[in-house]
């Protein structure tokens, strides 16, 4: 079946344009071609228009947007010209979609087997009920799930996140589609599960001979699955090439900087952010969109939008200076100083629980003064609970905390003013950690007001200083959080944490809501503060590649216990615990 159809399969997108109803272009002339049986990775940061491209390939748009030009050719049909009724016949059968979050994509009240069956029934698959039942169990088998009734009769909540996503993939591949659009399908999954899902998608694409578009913000993930990669910036493709070629020899400055911003698991590359931020659809500059942030910019760049042209065999780039683009800088392997300082924070036999559910089990850890200790763990490992306990936000705990040699009580209220000022906490989500009704200056100045009693002109001066130290201007003090980008908000959160001059900074997944280029900038900022101020950092994260680039010591947390605690060098060269080994093996790398 698959062999016969793969001949004519493949997607060709020409000049796709999507605009808001006000006429602001969001996607501006995107050309893509995906041969049958291959995966094209579409990489872009927030606001690049990648999800808009993805939905446009299914002939749809979000509310407020419309497809205003171009063609989406699949099996000889232009999907853009189809009516809504005709499109319904295509969607779910010829063109399918795997969403980011399987928990909201699956119907919680329908058995998973029926969810696959539903799409077959809906499109009159095969010759009858028997045929469809067989296809359902085939589909489950293809994605590596059990095919027995006991499994297919389960409800979504009875499956793990990875299994749920594989059910979504089974639904997408059930009807032998010609095109599968996958929109960040592994974002919510742990790396080990992610590796499984990526494998499944790659294998099925080959097996079915269909075209797959894999949308992601994560270049490392995309490079692990894609045959070719297209890089989207501000609504247009700036570079497209075979994956390996694109990563090793980028020909567009943005791609080159994006590669440099991805944390490298081998630690050979310097982690470097991109200055500035991506323009929003209404503020895109004329000429090359990347020109304002580009190091190679020449006057011609700002006058005319460069064409996407062939720069090497099968390699397209939209840059007039593509010959001068250098690959990401390779640095000397970073030497990490031996850790010999006394612990600033020590934790002994810490047990924490929520009600009756224990989350941490007798955990012990030392955080040496002036170092960055990474706390690595996947969701549910208890890492946030540990961070919150240290910050005095979680009090349902037993055990001992010592800070600077003194016993540290659990609740923030029981700690003296000096201790509260000395331990600062930065939250994961910059969109909920700043009070939307307070100005940035008010939020930043609050710890000084509350903990140090600073007021008036002195307070204003110190807030202004602090803003400049996180590379925002003092004028930001008057703004409200919703006038700031995610990266700017997180820098405000850093400023708020550091203004009371703490000695210990607890960072709880502070970059997980940010784009990689912004993440690299923020990590650089935190590292600068550590060196300048002698800060001690507890860096909570799930990203092992990021750990390599920020930490001197790593504690690996699994199910509420520390399974490995070693220096970064040792952990990456001689991992001792199976879990660490598994993580190192399954984390996608940019260059294999």
């Amino acid at each position, binding site marked *: 079946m698959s062999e016969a159809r793969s001949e004519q399969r493949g997607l060709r997108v020409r000049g796709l344009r999507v605009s808001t109803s006000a006429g602001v272009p969001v996607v501006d002339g995107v050309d893509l071609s995906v041969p049958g049986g291959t995966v094209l990775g579409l990489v872009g940061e927030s606001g690049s228009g990648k999800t808009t491209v993805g939905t446009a390939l299914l002939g749809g748009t979000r509310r407020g947007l419309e497809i205003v030009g171009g063609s989406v050719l699949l099996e000889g049909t232009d999907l853009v010209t189809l009516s809504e009724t005709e499109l319904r016949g295509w969607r779910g059968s010829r063109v399918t979609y795997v969403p980011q979050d399987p928990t909201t994509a699956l119907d919680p009240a329908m058995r998973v087997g029926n969810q696959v069956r539903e799409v077959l029934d809906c499109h009159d698959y095969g010759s009858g009920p028997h045929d469809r039942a067989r296809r359902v169990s085939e589909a489950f088998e293809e994605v590596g799930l059990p095919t027995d009734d006991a499994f297919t009769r389960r409800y979504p909540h009875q499956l793990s996140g990875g299994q749920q996503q594989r059910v979504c993939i089974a639904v997408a591949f059930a009807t032998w589609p010609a095109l599968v659009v996958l929109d960040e399908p592994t974002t919510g999954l742990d790396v080990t599960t992610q590796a499984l899902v990526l494998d499944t998608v790659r294998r099925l694409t080959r097996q079915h001979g269909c075209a797959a578009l894999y949308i992601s*913000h994560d270049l490392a993930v995309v490079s692990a699955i894609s045959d070719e990669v297209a890089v989207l910036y501000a609504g247009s493709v700036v570079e497209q090439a075979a994956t390996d070629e694109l990563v090793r020899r980028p020909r567009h400055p943005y791609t080159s900087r994006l590669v440099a911003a991805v944390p490298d698991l081998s630690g050979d590359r310097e982690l470097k952010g991109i200055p500035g931020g991506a323009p929003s*659809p209404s503020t895109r500059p004329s000429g090359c969109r990347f020109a304002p942030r580009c190091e190679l910019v020449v006057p011609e760049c700002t006058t005319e939008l460069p064409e996407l042209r062939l720069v090497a065999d099968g390699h397209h780039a939209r840059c007039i200076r593509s010959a001068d683009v250098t690959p990401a800088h390779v640095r000397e392997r970073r030497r990490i100083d031996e850790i010999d300082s006394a612990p600033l924070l020590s934790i002994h036999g810490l047990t924490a629980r929520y009600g009756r559910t224990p989350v941490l089990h007798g955990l012990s850890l030392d955080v040496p003064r002036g170092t960055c200790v990474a706390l690595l763990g996947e969701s549910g490992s208890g890492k946030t609970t540990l961070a919150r306990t240290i910050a*005095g*936000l979680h009090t349902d705990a037993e055990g001992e905390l010592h800070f600077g040699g003194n016993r540290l009580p659990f609740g923030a209220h029981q700690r003296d003013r000096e201790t*509260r000022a000395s331990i600062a906490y930065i939250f994961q989500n910059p969109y909920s950690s700043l*009070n939307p009704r307070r100005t940035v200056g008010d*939020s930043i100045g609050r710890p000084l007001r509350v903990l140090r009693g600073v007021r008036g002109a002195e307070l204003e001066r110190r807030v202004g200083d602090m803003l400049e130290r996180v590379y925002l201007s003092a004028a930001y003090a008057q703004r409200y959080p919703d006038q700031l980008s995610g990266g700017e908000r997180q820098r405000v959160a850093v400023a708020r944490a550091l203004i009371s001059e703490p000695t210990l900074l607890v960072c709880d997944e502070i970059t997980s809501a940010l784009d990689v280029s912004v993440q690299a900038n923020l990590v650089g900022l935190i590292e600068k503060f550590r060196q300048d101020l002698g800060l001690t950092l507890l860096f909570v994260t799930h990203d092992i590649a990021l750990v390599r680039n920020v930490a001197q010591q790593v504690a690996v947390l699994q199910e509420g216990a520390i399974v490995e605690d070693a220096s970064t060098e040792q952990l990456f060269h001689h991992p001792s615990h199976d879990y660490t080994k598994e993580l190192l093996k399954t984390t996608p790398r940019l260059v294999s």
Partner: protein
Amino acid sequence: MSVAEPGPIGNAIERVSGGQAPGLLRRSLAVGRTRAGLMITVLVVAVAVVGPFVAPASETGFVGAPYTPDAAGTVFGTDYLGRDVWSRFLYGGVSVLALSGLCTVIGVGVGLLVALLAGYSRTWVDELLMRTTDVLLAFPAIVLALLFLAVFEPQPATVVATVAAGHAPRVARVMRAAVLDVAGRDYVRAAESMGLRRWPIRLGDLLPNVTGPLMVETGLRLTYSVALVAGLGFLGLSGLEADQADWGLMINENRLGFTVQPWAVLLPVIAIGLLTVGTNLVADGIARAAAGTDREVGG
């Protein structure tokens, strides 16, 4: 368009470029029904406030025979005692407005206080307050009001207290949910980690972030207050002086002569109706604007 983050965050990302979203009030005014409602409300309030100063006759003076629609020197005729209907109408709005305004302010105020206390305590205080409101919620507002007024002497103060007491538990329920939602946000935790006490957090972090639902709730309670106060006036329970003009009372006094002299009933009915519709439209407009914050995304 967003990456790792769920909906609201993605929305926020896109809102960034547009600058700060305009305040709820301004967004509400952009909704057609708010403007229409506001115009109607202002009209009725103007009649009630300016009325006593422009009334052609006195509130209590007799100008003709009872129930005479076309009595000489009157616009809308006379009522059941022979007093000028138009003048009594112009005098009779203040009591309804003042009483319902007071009921709203007090009822919403008490409800909000309970909500802030209960929604951010996570102890038995929350349980105690909310179970008490549950008990109070079991009584319909009007029954509760009648019960109170049967026990205490009907005075304007008693009316305000009983109607406000009817509002408070309902407001508390709604606002507690709003407070609970905000209490889970990270900026509240950030304030906690600074060691701030509960009341500064309640006033500095929680209250400013529940103003949206608070405005909707206030508008809604104002509407109910008008209906309740007018209703109690109709039953003669508003505790006013015997011959004082009051829209609710006017309807009751003159209902028997409706076929002969409809104006004495129609005028207050229309006024109360318009006021209810007007305040309701405003409340609805604010609610739509508040709920529509996520709708301005998309571009």
